[in-house]
């Protein structure tokens, strides 16, 4: 490859946001006919670097060469003109339009607008690479993986031959991931240059030809995938080797803490989000909940926490002396006033668990501001709590008066989890507690959950990474489109079994095979 002209060469790229250096003198080469995995922990500047290639940001310093010629990419349009297309983590699609309409949105093609020709061209692209998408389907009818497909077709339709995918597998099931990877391999065969941003090592090994690693905004180096190993990549990523084994202390004396019976939730749009779900949450164990995202996990936790109106069923809290309290029909304040210490780490950290524009102290106050009879709120205790959390969980922050929005994802999560654990809960509900977190922060969270479990707290862990679920949880409940598809023992269950249970119902709707 050394004598081939790189399709893209980024030289000495630096990007600052205020005082934060997101990318420091980064260099990256990308060749045609290869899949490059851009690997790095969260906040290591992967997405920022690629956003500069895609014209979302403009670099403060450095140059970008496309096919050997320097270009200044000032907008996504400039990028597309150069054949660079990016598929973002959060899809940018108009829900009420069809796939084909989304694909041509914003294009200025001369002549009469011909939707049929568009559809035909979309189909041709799909056939070429092995996609499965119906051009006339509305986006709101689509699954996450279908939406992602539309995003990919959209950039291909615009003639992109350099594709950047930002954490494309984060929202996919294992089966969907395989399909995506096959498509990527087809594209590689036809000479496209592909970057996939990820922090999942097995995927890197699975699909990429080369790995480029960023650490804290600095380019560490790139290696051929076939010449490297998980150990080496981890070293490059985090700077030192971390053990990949997650602790799972033995369960001691489990007792039923919360009993959920026949819980049914119907959303405002009339969709059954939970269908007759029954299970119990036990003290001193971690109950995992697996499922494709949007299968009722959010509604389940919010129903228990008093935030979600339910159709029918019951959620009973069982105290140590065996008396029972119905939690349904009570709001979070009522539940707390019952003496039930229930902590909840919601999926939407800044939109629900914390207030992004408030500083650490004020966010710690959320749980405690009602304390005392004075009309004035006590800020001393929350400040001390914030200090303790920062100190104990190694929160990386300029100070206690920094708005939490300005912290990186991992640090935001530490602040939230730290506050929820400080409330000395008997039940701890967590939704995607490690989503978007780097390896070190993830392990710290696993550790915190395990320590709560050892204290006898009933812990619920809604997760998406099956590897983690089978290593961390004692029991795993599998949800599929609101149905409880099974409850398995975390120590004996295999990842593939769970993956299949997650899609058992959905399978009927999907095309069974790709040919």
């Amino acid at each position, binding site marked *: 490859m050394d004598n081939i002209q790189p399709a893209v060469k980024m030289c000495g790229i630096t990007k600052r946001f205020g005082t934060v250096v997101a990318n420091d003198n980064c260099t990256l080469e990308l060749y045609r006919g290869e899949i490059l995995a851009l690997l790095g922990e969260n906040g290591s500047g992967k997405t920022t670097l690629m956003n500069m290639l895609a014209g979302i940001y403009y670099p403060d310093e450095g140059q970008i060469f496309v096919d050997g010629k*320097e270009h*200044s990419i000032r907008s996504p349009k400039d990028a597309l003109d150069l054949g660079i297309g990016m598929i973002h983590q959060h899809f940018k699609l108009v829900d009420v339009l069809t796939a084909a309409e989304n694909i041509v949105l914003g294009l200025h093609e001369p002549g009469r607008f011909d939707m049929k020709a568009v559809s035909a061209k979309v189909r041709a692209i799909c056939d070429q690479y092995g996609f499965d998408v119906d051009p006339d389907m509305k986006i709101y009818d689509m699954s996450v993986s279908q939406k992602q497909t539309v995003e990919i077709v959209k950039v291909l339709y615009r003639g992109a031959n350099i594709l950047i995918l930002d954490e494309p597998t984060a929202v996919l099931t294992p089966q969907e991931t395989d399909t995506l990877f096959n498509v990527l391999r087809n594209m590689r065969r036809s000479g496209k240059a592909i970057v996939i941003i990820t922090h999942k090592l097995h995927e890197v090994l699975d699909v990429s030809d080369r790995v480029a690693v960023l650490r804290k905004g600095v380019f560490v180096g790139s290696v051929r995938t076939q010449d490297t190993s998980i150990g080496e990549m981890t070293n490059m990523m985090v700077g030192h080797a971390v053990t990949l084994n997650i602790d799972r202390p033995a369960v001691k004396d489990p007792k039923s803490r919360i009993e959920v019976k026949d819980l049914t939730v119907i959303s405002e749009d009339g969709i059954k989000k939970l269908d007759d779900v029954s299970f119990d949450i036990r003290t001193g164990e971690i109950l995992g909940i697996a499922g494709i995202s949007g299968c009722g996990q959010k509604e389940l936790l919010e129903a228990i926490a008093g*935030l979600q109106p339910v159709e029918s069923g019951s959620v009973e809290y069982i105290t140590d002396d065996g008396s029972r309290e119905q939690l349904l029909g009570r709001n979070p304040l009522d539940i707390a006033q019952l003496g039930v210490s229930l902590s909840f780490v919601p999926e939407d950290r800044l939109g629900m668990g914390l*207030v992004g524009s408030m500083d650490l102290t004020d966010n710690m106050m959320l749980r405690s501001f009602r304390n005392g009879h004075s009309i004035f709120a006590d800020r001393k205790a929350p400040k001390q709590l914030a200090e303790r959390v920062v100190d104990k969980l190694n929160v990386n922050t300029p100070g206690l008066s920094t708005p939490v929005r300005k912290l990186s994802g991992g640090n935001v999560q530490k602040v939230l989890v730290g506050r929820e654990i400080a409330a000395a809960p008997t039940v701890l509900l967590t939704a995607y507690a490690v989503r978007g977190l780097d390896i070190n922060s993830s392990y710290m969270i696993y550790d915190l959950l395990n320590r709560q479990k050892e204290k006898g707290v009933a812990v619920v862990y809604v997760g998406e990474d099956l590897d983690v679920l089978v290593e961390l949880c004692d029991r795993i409940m599998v949800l599929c489109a609101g149905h409880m598809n099974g409850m398995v023992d975390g120590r004996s269950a295999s990842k593939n079994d769970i993956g299949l249970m997650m899609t058992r119902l959905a399978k009927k709707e999907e095309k069974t095979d790709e040919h």
Partner: protein
Amino acid sequence: MSTEAEKKSSEAAKVPFVRIAKRTALPIWKSWGIRLLSVLLALIISALFIFSVTGLDPIAVYVVMWDGTFKSSYSFITTLRDTAMLLCISVALAPAFRMKFWNIGAEGQVLAGGLCTALVMIYLGNLLPQWLLLPLMFVSAVAGGALWAFIPAWFKARWNTNETLFTLMMNYVAINIVDCLTNIWRGAKSSMGNINASTQAGWFPLIFGYRFTLNIIIVAVLSVGMYMYLRFTKHGYEIAVIGESENTAKYIGINVRKVVVRTMLLSGAICGIAGFITVAGKNMTISSGTAEGFGFTAIIVAWLAKFNPGYMALISFLLIFLQKGATQIASSYAALNDYASSIVTGIILFCILGSEFFVNYSLIFRGKHQKGGEKA
């Protein structure tokens, strides 16, 4: 990898002429320096405008404008009086806006408070002693303003109606009710005249020779109180949480409906007080123009000050200063009527507002960018 070739092509590549970058925190003297420069710039632009349109000496015009406030101790203290009025309404809006409840109905709430004050003055003024009359006027004004705010707040909390439209419409209801009642009260006369002109019942006492001294004192107390309320109390904290994220508020068990209604009652009550002090301390009468449009101007003040009562006082003073200056200019020069002086005011406001952009962002021009590159 030939660096020379890269350098050459780097000259060819088009770097955007100017880019915008977020500033890190500026030292205070610099940010205020920028604001000061913006005022200077505004004065220069206005001078050009004045000179090119009217041929007048801009400096002389500015002196007249300055005189609007500082000509005499009386003009200064009336400026303070009007500043207090505007500030009072801004302070009333602060908690609602902090909660992201867009209360556009201050004008109506002030009128409701003023009307209640006038009602008590007219119908009970000659029956009750002054020491009982004033508190009763105060209470009824608070109740009137609060009621005018409660109606849209309750509908918002209960049925999630659009508070912007609702509060706006409530203004017109209040204006028409006041018009209707003043018509009845004045009877065949051309205007109402002062209420209780002979007995002065319900008028504020003279302090330091002015009736409206009490206005200024009341507003000062309210401003400090509101600052403390928003900054230090549990209520203030709840308001801030709801304003930033209603989901978080629900998650933490804050009763959002209750806080919305409570906060709007407070907002309306303070508007009612603004009506009370206007009627009893300044106008001694009521008309549909009693609020002088301050209910709308206060929205700008509250926003510019980011709901901080201290800044609100400064901005209120600036706006009133400009207004007085404009009036003074219009009365001194035939060539510069009300509209021309409003344009000058507009230019000054525009520059001051625009300066906030430069306080928060810096512009990086093409040349600078490459210098940065060489350093690295």
